[in-house]
């Protein structure tokens, strides 16, 4: 599948600070891709480079087959962007803002705009000055979602939204991916990425730590095993962080070793067993811990 976004070894410095340190990132067409990282990891800088707002110091960038720094107009005519942190014009009404920004993008669809206003329960006549933070966030979301483009870029899109509205947003992203559109969503909220993205890239201090589908990443990471045995078993190959408490054995298990370990444990008499696939949160922490260790 062709890539809609391809960053190769991108380095970006701000003075003496290195924001991106050889970042590589691939988003395939039709993918819903989550860009995960803690604050200051380089998520927003990556998005600005993808938009052609900042040039790279080294490395290559391709968005929708073009260089966003050089062919900005061509790239922008096929994408819509929701910024993470923006102060909107206070004296415009919400409806005016959505229309004005939407019309300056490609494929602004008025029926879709009206449907979105309804779905997000927005009062479009209100002046932006009088909106709450969450309602302002809805404005930039609607102005992007109402446009039929090939690529959507979201920077912390559910910031300020209540859980019900965050769910509306998730449905809208599913709607986009069902239509075959590509989405890149940056977030530090793991649940959000888990709910809407099929691919995830984790970045930290300007570098890609891990990238893959959620199932792949779960496969790569360790499963938490809690088993009650009649006879205590010894450490088996593939077990880590083993704890024993009476008849209960707790261990982190490498995913490929699970069949062998289970086979061996049977002979020790399994009374109860609990297996947990790691949440993204746990994977996330694991990556950081590993990174710190190296």
């Amino acid at each position, binding site marked *: 599948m062709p890539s809609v976004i391809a960053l190769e070894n991108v380095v970006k410095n701000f003075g003496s600070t290195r924001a991106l340190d050889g970042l590589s990132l691939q988003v395939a067409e039709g993918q819903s891709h989550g860009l995960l990282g803690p604050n200051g990891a380089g998520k927003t800088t990556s998005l600005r480079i993808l938009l052609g707002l900042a040039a790279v110091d080294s490395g290559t960038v391709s968005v929708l087959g073009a260089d966003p720094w050089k062919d900005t107009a061509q790239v922008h005519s096929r994408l819509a962007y929701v910024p993470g942190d923006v102060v909107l014009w206070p004296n415009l009404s919400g409806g005016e803002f959505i229309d004005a920004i939407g019309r300056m993008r490609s494929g602004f669809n008025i029926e879709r705009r009206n449907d979105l206003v309804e779905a997000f329960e927005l009062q479009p006549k209100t002046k932006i*000055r009088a909106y709450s933070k969450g309602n302002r966030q809805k404005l930039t979301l609607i102005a992007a979602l109402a446009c039929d483009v090939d690529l959507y870029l979201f920077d912390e899109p559910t910031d300020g939204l209540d859980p019900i509205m965050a769910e509306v947003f998730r449905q809208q992203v599913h709607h986009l991916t069902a239509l075959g559109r590509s989405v890149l969503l940056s977030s530090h909220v793991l649940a959000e990425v888990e709910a809407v993205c099929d691919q995830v890239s984790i970045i930290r201090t300007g570098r890609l730590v891990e990238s893959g589908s959620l199932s792949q990443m779960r496969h790569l990471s360790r499963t938490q095993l809690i088993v009650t045995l009649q006879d205590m078993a010894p450490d088996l190959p593939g077990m880590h962080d083993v704890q024993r408490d009476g008849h209960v054995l707790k261990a982190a298990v490498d995913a490929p070793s699970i069949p062998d370990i289970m086979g061996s444990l049977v002979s020790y008499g399994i009374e109860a067993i609990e297996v947990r696939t790691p949440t993204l949160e746990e994977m996330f922490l694991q990556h950081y811990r590993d990174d710190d260790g190296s």
Partner: protein
Amino acid sequence: MSTVITSSSAWLALARFRLRLDRLRIASWVIAGVVLTATVASTWDSLYPTAQERVDFAATLQAAPALTALLGPLQAPTSTGGLTTWRVGGLSVLMIGIVIVFLVIRHTRTDMSASRTDLILSGRLPRRSVISSGVVPAMVMSIGIGAACALALGASAGGWISAGIYGLSVAGSLVLFAAIASLIAQAVNSSRGANGIGVLVVSLAFVLTAIGNTRDVSALAEMTPFGWMAKASPYAQDMWGWAVLPFLVAGVVMAVSLAVASGRDVGSAWTTEGLGRERAPAWLSHPQALIWRVDRGVIVGWFIGIFAMALFMGYFSGSLTEILAENPQMAELIARLSHGEPSATFTKLILVFAALGAAGFPISILVRTAVDENEGRIELMLSTRMSRVQLLRARLAEVVVGSVLLLMVVGMGVGVVSGFFTDSRPSALSDGIGLAMVSLPAVWFIAALTALIVAISPRLAWLGWLLLAWCVVVGELAPLMNLPSWTERLSPYWYSPEWPITGDVWQSIAMTVASAVLMAMSFIVFARRRIPH
């Protein structure tokens, strides 16, 4: 009791924090007050060295009611202090009064709009502390300027008691405007709106006083702080009471303002936010339209303000021009204020000044691009099909065309009104427009330099305003301050041709070409740099 102490120390910390935010701003205005007072005081000895000349000068003023209206009655013509307070008192309180209003709004309504007050009030402080601490920088600046003016005046003109009364008058008037501004901040729900109403109130007080002075409706003049300044009569009758009066009134206004702040919801206003449009109008669909839509409030404000100023100036210019022809002494004073050219008319003096003011228009529009960048809107706009070139071009189009129209409005306002007063001069309208329009290349040049500054980095935007301040200093104050004459050549206005145009205008053409080159450079710079910078 410990709560009281803690709360008051919290208030002190907040007040100190606000002062700290504006320490440079306050210090520069106080210094400006000293420099202006001392410079003007130093001019009289060379202009009118003897007491007889000064008495003659006062007599000529009788024939110029417009000047009396503008500056108030000259009550102590023989003393340098009397002449100085008459010359700069009202005008500096008008100018600094507007700055004081902005300073109060900045620390009150702007904080409310940005929800900073909620953060402050979540601590130990009562609701009214938004207002009581918000006026602190303005109050400190008012008193600082009053003290600075008194010291500068006493040192250069003597008469310490009179200088003290003058200082009290200045400080009291400014304190009163600060108190009024704190009420306006609670009444109007946007900073820009509150600033506008504040400017209106201060200007209206000045205009009422001017009308009172001319028509000899002293009751009208006595209603305003400007009138009270004249009543305090430093170097003549030294009336302490009139100098203290504005403080008393300010105390009452402040008490009302604090009571209002205690009794109402924080951030509420008497104006309610009306509903806007459900859909954007059809024309709002391309970059130029969006930029116009978001800038038009500021643009319309400039045109209304400049037009009102032009009408006011036209009135004085009209009634003075005739007198000057018969009055060499007055002509000499005016000439000294206008680049030392004896042939200069008062209309010309006024229009050069108005053209300087008009350059504030392109600066205020172009720095909006820097604000857009700081607040993240530029990223949003540039993520659409709007290009960097389109964005900058939209603002430059407003500025290039707007400067032409603004100078036309200035020239027409001054021309029509001054022509109305002196119907012997049917060419007043064309003269007004011509005198204003000769400054167009200079205004464009300032606009182009500001565009380049904003294109380079939003952090440099303040340099645009510095540029204008520089032009005011070398253009208007250099002759007064006896700066070397070459400094005047460092202002684009120096190269504006005379009106009616007699010689060649290659300097204007060169300046226009230079503006175009600077604008082209700003496009190149803006297209190549990282955004936000």
